[in-house]
């Protein structure tokens, strides 16, 4: 075990994957010598050479297309999109190509092994072009796996699983936690399961669901509800947005009868909608109150009013209380 922040855990995962398998490559804007604007690929070029870790020209659609071709050849490209806000020029390559590669060819070709890593989320005074949480756009796309880790341990294990997955993965990294989240991480290779949620705190009154950087926030809200009102929250980290672990959530809600979902992205069309729709259907007779969604407002991510915009612990706490008092 070693103490690592999330960037170090990611860097460590990439390092292990590249050491283990020659076909793993890392590239993206400023990813090479510089190690990426957040330094997630630090020292990898030094260690594995310019052909396996390199800068690309400034073109996200090119990066994604290049990665698709490389993966189709059998390589395992780990492509970085500098900010999730800049993944949209690559949207066609990801949604029409990456996601459909295996299906459209009848399994003649596939791009398993391909991972897009990209920092997402707000809370860093980034305004609407350095703060977006676009996971829902990808979650509507069969063929992709979408993952969001919450801490260094999760980031390393899930990233290694992503690189080893036979299916392409979008790996969203909560940049607010890059340096802020520090924890014990095994130094050796390990994987955590894709498609499995994790119950991070058991509870009996209400299920509280989130992912990524919001896990901290819902934990804080749960603590507040516990201290102030004696409410016992069961907290679930969804971890995989696609495919998502319906069973774990259903099981919890069957027990608690209440569900509050929190995410950073705007409410309308966000992934909380999918979860709420599924859960109301599967747990209809067990729900004691409406499923609550605590999300970003339906506006582009603001700057000066960021604090007001965020789905913070107070808003979450209020939703918990509302749900309990329904």
């Amino acid at each position, binding site marked *: 075990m070693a103490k690592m922040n999330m960037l170090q855990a990611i860097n460590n995962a990439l390092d292990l994957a590249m050491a283990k398998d020659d076909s793993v490559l890392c590239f993206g804007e400023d990813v090479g010598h510089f190690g990426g604007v957040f330094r997630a690929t630090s020292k990898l070029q030094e260690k594995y050479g310019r052909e396996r870790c390199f800068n690309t020209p400034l073109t996200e659609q090119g990066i994604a*297309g290049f990665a698709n*071709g490389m993966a189709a*050849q059998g390589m395992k490209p780990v492509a970085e999109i500098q900010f999730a806000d800049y993944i949209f020029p690559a949207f066609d390559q990801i949604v*029409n190509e990456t996601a459909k590669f295996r299906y459209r060819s009848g399994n*003649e070709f596939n791009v398993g092994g391909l991972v897009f890593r990209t920092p997402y989320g707000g809370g860093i005074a980034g305004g609407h072009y350095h703060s977006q949480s676009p996971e829902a756009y990808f979650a509507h796309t069969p063929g992709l796996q979408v993952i969001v880790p919450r801490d260094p341990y999760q980031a390393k294990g899930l990233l290694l699983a992503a690189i080893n997955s036979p299916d392409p993965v979008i790996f969203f990294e909560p940049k607010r936690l890059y340096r802020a989240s520090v924890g014990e991480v095994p130094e050796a290779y390990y994987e955590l399961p894709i498609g499995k949620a994790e119950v991070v705190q058991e509870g009996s009154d209400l299920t509280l669901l989130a992912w990524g950087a919001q896990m901290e926030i819902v934990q804080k809200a749960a603590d507040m509800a516990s201290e102030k009102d004696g409410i016992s929250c069961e907290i679930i980290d969804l971890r995989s947005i696609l495919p998502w672990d319906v069973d774990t959530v259903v099981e919890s809600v069957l027990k608690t009868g209440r569900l509050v979902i929190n995410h950073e992205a705007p409410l309308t069309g966000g992934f909380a909608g999918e979860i709420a729709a599924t859960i109301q259907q599967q747990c209809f007779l067990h729900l004691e109150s409406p499923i609550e969604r605590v999300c970003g407002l339906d506006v582009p991510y603001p700057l000066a009013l960021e604090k007001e915009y965020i789905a913070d612990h107070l808003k979450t706490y209020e939703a918990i209380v509302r749900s309990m008092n329904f």
Partner: protein
Amino acid sequence: MTNPNNATNTTVHSAEFISGHALSIPTLRLLKDDGTLYDGAQEPELDKATALKMYDTMVFTRVLDERMLAAQRQGRISFYMQCLGEEAAIVGSAAALDDKDMIMAQYREQGALRYRGFSLEQFMNQLFSNEKDLGKGRQMPVHYGSKDIYYMTVSSPLGTQIPQASGYAYAQRLRGLSNVTLCYFGEGAASEGDFHAGLNMAAVHKAPVLFFCRNNGYAISTPANEQFVGDGIACRGVGYGIKTMRVDGADILAVYQATKMAREQALASNEPILLESMAYRLGAHSSSDDPSGYRSKEEEDEWRKNDPISRFRLWLINKGWLDDAADTEQTSQLRQEILDALKVAEKVAKPGIEHMITDVYAEPTQQLQQQLNELKAHIKKYPDAYPVTAGRID
């Protein structure tokens, strides 16, 4: 002073524009219309067997296209796209490759598939989306692909294969393979952002890819002069620092020669090459299109004279490699074979219902499995509404 801007470092002191047409690129042509070579033109090295295989492939393409367009008109298949007028461009370039060079096509390159050995049955199974289709009946007709013959499955979104080809070729180089990737695309598709991204990345990262632009004058109804203002597509090569050649796409010897040279150069120095084929899309864009609304019969007739097959045929006859009568006989035999194969393929069952969910992921997810189960139960309840699959559900 160093020059970090990565550009020419000469200075002038009076302001003048570089013309938008400062570079004028000639077209390589070896064969005259009468099947003889131009003065000074050198014949590419080509043995008889290869030359005849190239010829047969062009003829196969032509006859298949005729037959399948008719089948579409009869309502037997839903859609079709011909190669008419561009057979030499496709077959000539495919013939210049190694069998393990990857081909990434747009959609109009059936000649390359055939040259690689895609069987008549395989064509038919795809066109009829039956259960023997390698693509499991999931894509529209002409979206062929086969791993065995290194032919990437065609995808409709235009231009997407261009940066993919760069990535594929980069991977070939890293693996130490002596293979290139050949990437076909139309002059219309060359307007997509992916073209720019793909060529630039290949140049910067030294990927041995041959970018083969089929400039055939039209993108559906849009003529080339509403597609771009520059000198065709070839003049863009210099914008990426990529070696470039323009070639008469109706002259199979020229195409073969240019592609051979391009392949050698690409492998020798790990670099991409841009080739532009100048030919004419003689047929409609697709079976859904009628060109009479946007171009004249005179224009078409003019170009019909420029037939790539007859030009090559004359060369083969001149060489004494082709017998006129035997060839005619062989072609009519081929027509029959195609008809027979068509009749077989159209009777083959459609893919089973389980293929609704296979290949979305390497293994179906639990949700997909559940969706399939529900669907099966539903079909069993209403078998008449789903005749294709109802009888075959366990």
